[in-house]
Each structure stands twice: as C-alpha cells, then as structure tokens.
C-alpha cells in the first residue's frame, strides 16, 4: 500500500470533466473512472500495450503556460487555454500527466473512430446473424456506436482460412480476426507458451500457431474470452446458444483453493459455459480450461438424484427419518469435505455436536501449476479451519479412521461428498458399519450406505468459500437442482431439528451468517448480503503455524497470510 501512496495523483481533463488519477494511469482507465467509454480492441488491462487497433485515438492537449512565469494562460472566457496536438494519440498508450486535456468526442476523435471502424469492417465478414460472437462482439457494438452505418467498400473482400483448429479447445476463423494480437500477447505474457503468431503481411496477415505446435495449454480458452470478435471460439460452446439468451451468475471455481472468480452462463436450468470473472486480487481476468468443464458434473450419469437406503430409492423425508434413527445409535465418526461451503461446515459442526465423535478430513492433493490451479484441489479447506472443524492439515490417508473401524470403537460413519474407499478403506469393511452418506454423486461409499442423501452442486446453491489467501468469496445459485432436492444447509438443519425434536431451526443464509458472525471471530461484522463480489480477506493470524501445501501462484505467496498482518 505504501507504494501506491507515493504515486502522485494528477488531474486530467477528459471531455470537460476533471478526473484525479495516479500519474501514469492510461487514458482508457482514467476515462472509465468518469464513466466515459473510449472504444478499444487491442488494449486489455492485464496485457502489455500494443497500440495496434487505433480505435482508442483521442485528441490530446496540454494546458498552456507562460514559459517565463509558469502561470496558466486563460481564454477570454476565463477557461484554461489548451495547446491541442493536431495528431491524434492512442488513449491506451497515453499516460496521464498533470495538465493533460483529452477530447474523446471531438470532430477529430469521431473521424478517427469512424475511420478505424470502417477499415476494420471492410475485410470482415458482415454475417453477424450466423456468427457465434453476435451479442458479445465488440466489433458489432462499436460499429453501432462509433461507425458510419454504411459501407463505401465495393471491392472483393480478402479470403482467409475458416474453421482452423488451433488446439483441442479452440477454433479460429481467420476472416473474422482483426489482428489485435490480444491472444498472441496472452500466450507470450501470461502463460509463457508462445505458440500463436501472425504470418504474411499487411491485410493478408493471418493468425496461426507455430508449425508443429498447438494451442493446447490449460489456459487456451482465455484467448477465446479476450478475443473481441468471433475469430476464436470455444469448441465446446460454439454455436450451441445465443449469448443473449443466457443468464449470468457470479460463482467461484471449485477446481482448487485458488478460488477463481467465475461467471456461469445458463438458460432454463441448463449451464452452457463458465467464463472467468475479473478479480485483480485472485485471478485477474483468467481461468484454467479444466475449471470450465466442472459444470458437466451437474448432469453427470452418476449424479445422486434420489435418496437411497441400502441402495433402494426412498422418499427424502423417509431418508431424513432413517438417518436420524441410525445416527444416535452408537459412536459416530465423521468424514468432512473441503468441498462444503463455509455455511455447510458451520451447520455440519452443529450436527456433530448432536453425537460428538472423531472428525476426519481427506486432503484433495493434486498438482499445482503455479498460475491458477493450486495443489489443494478443493475450494474450502480454509473454511474447515475457520469453522473449527479441523485444526491441523488433513493427512494423505484415513488410517486413523481405519484403526477405529477395525477396533470396533465406532459404529456409524457420516461421510460428506467424499468416496472414502479411495483412501484405503475397503467397501467390505465399510459395509460392516452404518455409513450415512451425504453427497452430490454416487460412488463406492454411497453404494454401501445405509442412508444416502443427495446434495446440491456449487451451481445449484449459494454460499461462500475461503480460498488459499483466506479470502472469503461468495457464489450464487445459477440453476435449480434436481427435483425435490433441498440446499445442503436445509438438509443439515432439518436433520438436526429432527434429532432435537424441535421445529425447524435457522436455515437461511442470512440467519446462519448472523449466527456465525457472533460465534466466529474472523466473521465479525460480516454478512452474506454485504459481502462484496471481490471477497473479503480474513484475519488468518490464528493459522500462522499451519504449513499449507500451496506454492506461489498468480496472486498468492505462501506466506501472504503472514504478510497480510
């Protein structure tokens, strides 16, 4: 923070509005602060300045000052006299400095915008109705806002390759490409996998991958996101749905503890794609390709849609009753999950209090990529610490549980989400115990469960996760869950209320939060509704001693929790 304070703020006048910005801010960003749109294609806030599209040309001037006295010179009407530069300047490459004047709507600026729009369109196919980008195309939008509205081009358009397979997930239509080089710069600068480039010259320039190479890294779909036109398309999503039919829901990627902010695009209860949502502290504007596939679990064949008892479908109410019948009988062990939301973990702890027993946790270790996938492949391990379910890192196995099972010390096991047969516990051994399973999908553990209660995926409910930085982030329900299914918090509270023979206890997110911020120090003053989209960094000092497994990634340093203090 001390860094930021040392940067001098300067006043820039854009279209007559004085804007105070840190010196060096580029004019596109400065204008955005005053809600002035400067159209642009090649500029991207997270990539280097290329200055090639020329769409952001503006008129620039400097306040006139008397050379000898340094006094400002004024017009007759008392306004500052400005020395306007006759040559337009690119807003993206112009850095704010004191006394700068910018016109984005002057005759010159308008003529530049019209000119560039016309040039971009002359060789671009004007077949928007059949283009997949329609509805989210900057070319389409700016053509309407800044273009002439008619074409003066009567020559033949250039012909370039169509439907080029750039990689396993990206398809390129070169005719639509406006050569802004965003994708090229992304590959060079962000993922350091320099596979894209231009061949040929002038208007015949063509985007392609290097001979013998493919755009096949796990971040390739970001090029589709940042492509301002319909040139790069997602082979999974292309031509499946018009974007204006899709509803956008803010969500969090559950692929790893990075907690990438996402947007889930759905229509009529069906998810069509997931794209990254900008969070400068977490994922900038990027996300991994693998995280975009997670929505497919919603409709997966092994989805648990009905409650089961010993493998037979039963009604939900009956499942709840049976659960509460078995649960108090004998000693119970618990296997929790870092895939549960903070709220679910909080209520789960309450359930445990009904029949206290040892709590086990599986770790979801995987390989980190140093960018946006961490080695903890679960979204909410930190939540389990904060809610007090665990106080040390989960082990690689469940040997503790195995011991208890073999010694006959426990009779019941409540398992949330996880398939514990993968952690060294045989189905045969499980069968000899009363397994009470809550989860989204069936697996070898749910198969042998006395009662299996289906729960909702992250896309079908709302809640919060705590990522590797101890950043509390919320996600919202994008689509309804399978018929009859309740959100996990409601399922858990119902189980508790049946056990207590009480009428239903608090089960809405606001109510849980008002309870949580009284009981959990780190949540003091927070509420679900007021939690900003960018999340809130929690006080992690209580967990300083814990050696979390994640290594450095885009916006995470292993000791950042300690530094944050």
């Amino acid at each position: 923070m001390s860094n930021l304070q040392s940067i001098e703020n300067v006043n820039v006048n854009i279209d007559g509005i004085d804007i105070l910005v840190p010196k060096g801010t580029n004019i596109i960003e400065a204008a955005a602060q005053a809600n002035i749109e400067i159209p642009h294609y090649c500029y991207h806030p997270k990539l280097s300045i290329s200055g090639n599209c020329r769409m952001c040309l503006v008129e620039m001037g400097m306040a006139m000052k008397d050379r000898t006295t340094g006094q400002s010179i004024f017009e007759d009407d008392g306004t500052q006299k400005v020395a306007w530069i006759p040559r337009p300047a690119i807003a993206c490459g112009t850095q704010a400095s004191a006394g700068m004047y910018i016109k984005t709507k002057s005759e010159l600026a308008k003529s530049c915008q019209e000119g560039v729009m016309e040039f971009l369109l002359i060789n671009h196919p004007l077949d928007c109705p059949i283009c997949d980008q329609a509805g989210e195309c900057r070319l389409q939008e700016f053509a309407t806002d800044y273009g002439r509205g008619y074409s003066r081009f009567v020559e033949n358009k250039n012909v370039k390759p169509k439907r080029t397979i750039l990689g396993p997930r990206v398809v390129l239509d070169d005719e639509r490409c406006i050569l802004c080089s965003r994708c090229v710069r992304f590959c060079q600068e962000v993922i350091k996998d320099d596979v894209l480039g231009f061949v040929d010259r002038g208007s015949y320039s063509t985007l392609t991958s290097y001979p013998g190479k493919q755009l096949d890294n796990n971040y390739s779909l970001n090029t589709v996101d940042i492509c301002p036109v319909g040139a790069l398309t997602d082979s999974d999503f292309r031509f499946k749905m018009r974007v204006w039919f899709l509803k956008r829901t803010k969500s969090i990627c559950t692929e790893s503890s990075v907690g990438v902010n996402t947007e889930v695009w759905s229509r009529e209860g069906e998810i069509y794609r997931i794209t990254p949502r900008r969070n400068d502290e977490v994922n900038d504007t990027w996300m991994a390709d693998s995280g975009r596939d997670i929505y497919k679990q919603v409709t997966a064949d092994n989805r648990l849609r009905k409650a089961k008892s010993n493998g037979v479908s039963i009604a939900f109410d009956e499942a709840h009753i049976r659960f509460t019948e078995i649960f108090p009988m004998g000693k119970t062990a618990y296997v929790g999950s870092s895939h549960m939301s903070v709220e679910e973990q909080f209520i789960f702890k309450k359930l445990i209090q009904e029949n206290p027993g040892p709590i086990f946790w599986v770790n979801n270790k995987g390989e980190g990529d140093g960018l946006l996938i961490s080695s903890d492949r679960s979204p909410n391990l930190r939540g389990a610490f904060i809610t007090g379910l665990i106080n040390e890192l989960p082990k690689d196995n469940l040997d503790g549980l195995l011991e208890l099972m073999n010694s006959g010390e426990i009779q019941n096991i409540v398992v949330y989400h996880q398939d514990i047969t993968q952690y060294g516990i045989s189905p045969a051994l499980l069968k000899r115990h009363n397994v009470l399973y809550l989860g989204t999908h069936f697996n070898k553990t749910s198969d042998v469960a006395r009662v299996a209660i289906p729960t909702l995926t992250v896309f079908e409910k709302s809640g919060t996760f705590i990522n590797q930085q101890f950043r509390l982030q919320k996600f919202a329900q994008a689509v309804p869950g399978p018929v009859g299914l309740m959100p996990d918090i409601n399922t858990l509270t119902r189980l508790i209320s049946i056990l207590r023979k009480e009428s239903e206890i608090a089960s809405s997110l606001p109510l849980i939060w008002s309870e949580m911020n009284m009981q959990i120090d780190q949540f003091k003053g927070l509420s679900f509704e007021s939690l900003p989209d960018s999340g809130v960094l929690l006080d992690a000092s209580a967990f300083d001693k814990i050696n979390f497994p994640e290594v450095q990634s885009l916006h995470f340093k292993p000791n950042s929790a300690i530094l944050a203090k």
Partner: protein
Amino acid sequence: MATEERRMILEHIDQPGYDNSIDCYIKHGGYEVLKKAILRKPEELCQEVVNSQLRGRGGAGFSAGMKWGFLDRKSGKPVYLICNADESEPGTFKDRQIIYKDPHQLIEGMMITAYATQTKLAFIYIRGEMYDGARILEHAVEEARAKGFIGENICGSSYSCDIIIYRGAGAYICGEETGLIESLEGKRPYPRIKPPYFPAILGLYQSPTVVNNVETLCHVKFIAEMGGAEFAKIGTPNNTGTRVWCVSGDVQKPGYYEFPCGAITLGQLIYEVCGGLNPGRTLKAVIPGGSSAKVLRAGERYQGKLKDGTEFDWTLDDIPLDFDSVSACGSMSGSGAVIVMDDSRDMVQVLGNINSFYAHESCGQCTPCREGSLWMKKITARMADGDAREQDADLLLSIAKQIEGRTICAFGEACAWPTMSFVSKFKEEFSEKAAQQKSTQHPLV
C-alpha cells in the same frame, strides 16, 4: 548556378581503377580521419556534428547531432549504433553504390560515429535483397578488423567496438528504425509505439540506440575531417553538405548525381544533368523524394515564405534541391529519389503501381495502414482496369485522410501521401477514367 557535380561521398566511386578493397581505400587516404578522430574527445566530435547541421539522409531529414544528443546516458545501459542499410524506398539507389563500391567509406564513417557516441557494438542492417552487398560488407569488415580499424583497441586507442552485418528478410518496413530494431532482435518488424520506445532511449534490446542512414554516416567522416563549421559552409544554411540524387524515370540519363544542397534546381537536374526528357515528350510530374513523397505537377506554381522569411515564387523547374525548399512546395526531398514522369504516363496507373507496393509492404500491425493501403490498391487497380466510378477519386482522398497521422509509424503517411497528391493534383485523369468506364453501371452501386 553551376551544374558541375561536387562529389564527396561519390568521389572515388566509378573511378577507373578504384575497387572496394581496403588497400585501394587506404591508398586513397582512407582511415586517416578515423586515426585522428580517435585521438579527440568523443564529446568534441558530437559537437562537430551538431555544428555541421547535418541532416539525416534516410528520408525524414532529422538533425543527426540532435539525434545523438537524445541518447539516454543516465541509464547505464550500453549504447548501440545501427547503420540503416535497408535502402528500399522505391526510386532510391544511392546507399547501394556506397555499399558495393566503397564499403570502407561507410565503415570509417561508422567507426567515427561509434567512437563519438561511445557505442558498445555496431550493426549494419542490410536489405535482404542486397545479397552481394552483405558479402562485400562482411569482407570489408574482416579487412578492417585485421588492420585494427574495428574490434579491440581501435587504432591503438583504448576504445573497442565491433561491427556485425545483419541481413534483413526483404521487407520495406524494416527501413523504419523501430521496425528495423525489432527485426534485428529476431522478431517480426512491427514498428514500436512512440512513446515510449524512442530508439535513443529504449532501442535495441531496450538500450539507447542510434540509427543512421548509410549516406549520413559517410558524411560524419567528412565532418570529422573538415570540422563541423567548414562542413556547414557546403550547401545552404540548415541544408548543409552534399546530397546524392537518384534520378529515375523518363529522363535520358538516369543515375545518381551528387551536389551540394540547394546548388541546383529540379529543372537543372532534369534538363542539364540528366540530359532532359526523351525526344518529343513534355514533363508531366516529378516525385522528388522517393515514392512516398507527394508528387509535384509540371505547370504548378509554388508561392510562399521560407523558414528564414524569404519569399519564393517558383515553377516546378525552379525548386532548389535541398530539404527545406522541397518541403516548402508541399512535398519532401526524402531519400533523394527523383522520379520523373513525362506525358506518356497514365497517372491512375502510376498511382496503382505505387499503391500496390504499399499494400504489399504494409506490415499489417495497425489498422488504418493495413486495411487502407490494400483498399486504395484495390480501387486504383479497378480504375486502371477500366471499371472506375465517379466517386472513386473522392473516396481515395477520404481513405488516405483516414490513414494519415493515425498509424504507429510513418508508413501511414508514406502510403497516404501518394494517393492524396496524385488524386488531388490529377483529379481530371481520375474523373476521365470514370467517364470511359467499361461497364456503364458498376454492379455494386
């Protein structure tokens, strides 16, 4: 005014018995200036160049002394010197003469420049098509290195600097200094955005870099030899030294001719030096400084005031050949390529030819030039093909205006100016094309 050449740069070139070996160069007094210059203080030499008022010969005519003065000395980064030998402006063939026939003159000029600017390493970026030129330069550099004029401890001094010959891959844009630098770094020659990438601050490998034309560097030798003040006496104030004019087109004796700046007029160059037009032909137009310079039409009158306040009233023939006078007439002396056209030329075809060059050579980085240059080519090609429309002339002007001043590099102007000048000065020819079009109605109108 005399029409006798004053050959400085070209003094030995084409003389019987003169070859491009180092022995021949030394026999004619070569490398003596370097030997003396290396004993002087570098700042002194830089000051001589400032005093000489030498202007760059590559096209823009920017003050060489000032360019060197911009070098960022505070960064602590090494300084590089690049000789721009990517001579590719259509109509220009002066650097080629120096490289092929007197390479040591360039090397001597370069080493003096390198010493004056305290360059760590120097490069000659030579146009890819000049294969033999690169071989000749490589050989010459080896010869000079063997004799201690290049490399460690030049002429026994404590100063060391080497020259590396680098061949381009055949693109006009590599003549643009930041495009050249990108190419030299092994990338596509996309010109850089300025600010912040001014070569003198963030040039080759993000270090301060001087980029000078071949002829400019050769002049440095003469400045070191005779002193800046003496050099400035050649030519006219602010237009000092000699220039090599490359004359091509419809004259009887095309070729390269060296004169002090302002010593002769365009008319003298065409009619006296180059033997005039072909029999029976009249002058129609002249491009005075390479294909990107605006065309001058025979019969035009140029009136106005020069920078020093003197009023002028010239016909095409009266224009003195220097930097400022040609600029005052609305064009530029550019790279010194004078292209002469007589009345047999169809201006639409000429422009079509120029436009097809620029459409082919546009690097494709920024939108206006990339799309505009090809569009203008397509229009002029269609017009020349007999399918012109009445509105095409105005459309061409409008496209050119949409390019000029809005691009990353000066290529935008280079491709816009021919169209702007040809169409506005020969509008009737463009209109006539529309009148005699093949089809009575354009299918798309």
